[in-house]
């Protein structure tokens, strides 16, 4: 078995036990990248020279029997909207094409403190705005399961590299489903933690009340391992929660007897692909068979999540992206008449079509005359959705829903009609609106052998429960063992 195909947990152990050298592991992954990347196009930047330098230092420490951390020597990929000191962080936008951060995001520090090696930065929808990675200014990432289809988005590059064994794990960000939906399309595990569990310092902002960083992994156990490393309070992010440190690996137990799984029958209705529906029903049976109780629940307002999301997210984005003015960093137009013209031309030339659409929509819903009708009303519906979930979690431990209504679609199929693209997020956005943790894990394949993800949702800061249930489902199914033939 090739080293690159191992799990995060296994490769970390092999390095620690000195069965393999860190250089051998890097060689294996970079040769895999050389072989597969020309087909998948998932990386924007590769960081070989830094990675090998770091590998050498870590190996020396290991050879001296020093502790190199729980991810010691393990290659990991990072979505290109998370700041890496000295390594370009483009947000897949012309606006930041040449931006090199002078600091590391807190999650990068934490990963490196645990011994991980950053091997490259992954492609994404521009400023994380999209559900297919097609809005990237840099390149089009292909789904490793079928190169004529999208990998999902916005963290499409991170999902694709883990799916095709071009990294042992990756970081992504999830504002409305940007970790879970591509995880579903590419048959990997994607975890969106509770808002506040992970520091957002160094994550380039899209919608600050919704954004959250999380891991892509090959297994649920690997997700728990990643969470152990990247979670925790950070004084640089005032919205990060100050909680006692938890060992999430303790939740990796194959047992859900007596656990109650909520099924929101009023939310899962029309517009769902037949094969996805079948996989979902089968997932319910699997859970029943291992001793979970199934409980029907109501999420009356969840159907309004998408409208609520696109008002709140674009409003926050229009404000967050106001900083790109061509002055201190980022793209500056070459020809301009005066300062105002510099702003106009830099933004007009620097942003792509979807980003402009969202900036304008956000500006519209915040503008006088529309604020109450849209923005304020969306915030009120947000409260109702949150209350829905609170009530639901009185009846169940976790809610089970599909991750996306469809499997991966073909390039260009939905990019002409923004609304149709937005509808792919119908099952993921309620979680961000309520700030809850959720995980997408492999849950089947459709008639064309494209992956189907299923999603578990838990109450705030109940990641242990979430991981326990997801792990049990995973261990009692075989879907996660299948790999794309690439």
């Amino acid at each position, binding site marked *: 078995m090739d080293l690159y195909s191992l799990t995060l947990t296994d490769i970390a152990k092999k390095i620690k036990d000195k069965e393999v050298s860190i250089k051998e592991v890097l060689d294996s992954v970079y040769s895999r990248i050389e072989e597969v990347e020309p087909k998948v196009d998932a990386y924007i930047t590769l960081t070989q020279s830094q990675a090998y330098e770091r590998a050498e230092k870590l190996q020396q420490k290991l050879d001296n029997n020093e502790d190199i951390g729980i991810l010691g020597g393990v290659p990991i990929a990072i979505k290109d909207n998370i700041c890496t000191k000295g390594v370009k962080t483009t947000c897949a936008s012309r606006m930041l094409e040449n931006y090199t951060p002078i600091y590391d995001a807190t999650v990068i520090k934490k990963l490196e403190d645990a011994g991980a090696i950053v091997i490259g930065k992954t492609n994404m929808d521009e400023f994380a705005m999209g559900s297919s990675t097609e809005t990237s200014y840099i390149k089009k990432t292909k789904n490793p399961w079928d190169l004529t289809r999208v990998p999902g988005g916005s963290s499409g590059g991170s999902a694709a590299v883990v799916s095709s064994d071009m990294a042992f794990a990756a970081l992504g960000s999830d504002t409305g489903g940007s970790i879970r939906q591509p995880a579903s399309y590419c048959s990997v595990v994607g975890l969106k933690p509770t808002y506040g569990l992970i520091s957002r310092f160094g994550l380039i902002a899209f919608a600050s009340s919704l954004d959250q960083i999380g891991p892509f992994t090959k297994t649920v156990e690997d997700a728990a391992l990643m969470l152990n490393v990247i979670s925790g309070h950070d004084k640089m992010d005032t919205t990060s929660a100050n909680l006692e440190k938890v060992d999430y690996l303790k939740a990796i137990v194959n047992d859900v007897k007596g656990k109650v799984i909520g099924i929101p029958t009023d939310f899962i209705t029309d517009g769902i692909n037949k094969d996805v529906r079948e996989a979902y029903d089968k997932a319910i049976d699997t859970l029943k068979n291992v001793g979970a109780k199934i409980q029907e629940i109501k999420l009356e307002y969840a159907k309004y999540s998408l409208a609520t999301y696109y008002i709140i997210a674009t409003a926050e984005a229009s404000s967050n992206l106001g900083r790109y003015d061509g002055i201190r960093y980022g793209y500056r137009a070459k020809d301009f008449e005066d300062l105002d013209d*510099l702003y106009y031309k830099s933004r007009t030339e620097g942003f792509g079509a979807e980003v402009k659409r969202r900036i304008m929509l956000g500006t*519209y819903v915040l503008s006088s005359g529309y604020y109450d009708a*849209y923005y304020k009303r969306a915030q009120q519906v947000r409260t109702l959705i949150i209350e829905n979930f609170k009530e639901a979690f009185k009846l169940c431990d976790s809610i089970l829903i599909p991750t996306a209504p469809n499997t991966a679609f073909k390039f260009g199929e939905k990019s002409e009609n923004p609304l149709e693209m937005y509808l792919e997020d119908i099952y993921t956005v309620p979680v961000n609106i309520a700030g809850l943790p959720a995980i997408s894990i492999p849950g089947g394949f459709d008639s064309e052998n494209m992956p189907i993800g299923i999603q578990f949702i838990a109450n705030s800061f109940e990641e242990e429960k979430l991981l326990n249930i997801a792990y049990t489902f995973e261990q009692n199914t075989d879907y996660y063992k299948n790999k794309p033939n690439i």
Partner: protein
Amino acid sequence: MSVSKEEVKHIAVLSKLQLTDQELEKYTSDLSNIVDFANELSNVDVDGTKPTAHILDIKNVFRKDEVQPSYDREEILKNAPSKDAGCVSVPKVVE
């Protein structure tokens, strides 16, 4: 169209974006479709419901007002599109 061309022109100005005639057509249609879709929220009874701006129950978080080392000026300026004499250079602001 629930959003007019005039409105889109106005929003573009507020957003500091220039639109071609073709883009104006496309965005007017796109934004109208999205706003029509978002109008389903007008069916929800929100009377007496408090708006949620932020999911966590936290108030202002303050730190002590202490001087700490910051980033190096030269490092920061590396990302500036135009610089001069240790400063970010911009076009003339005051006539």
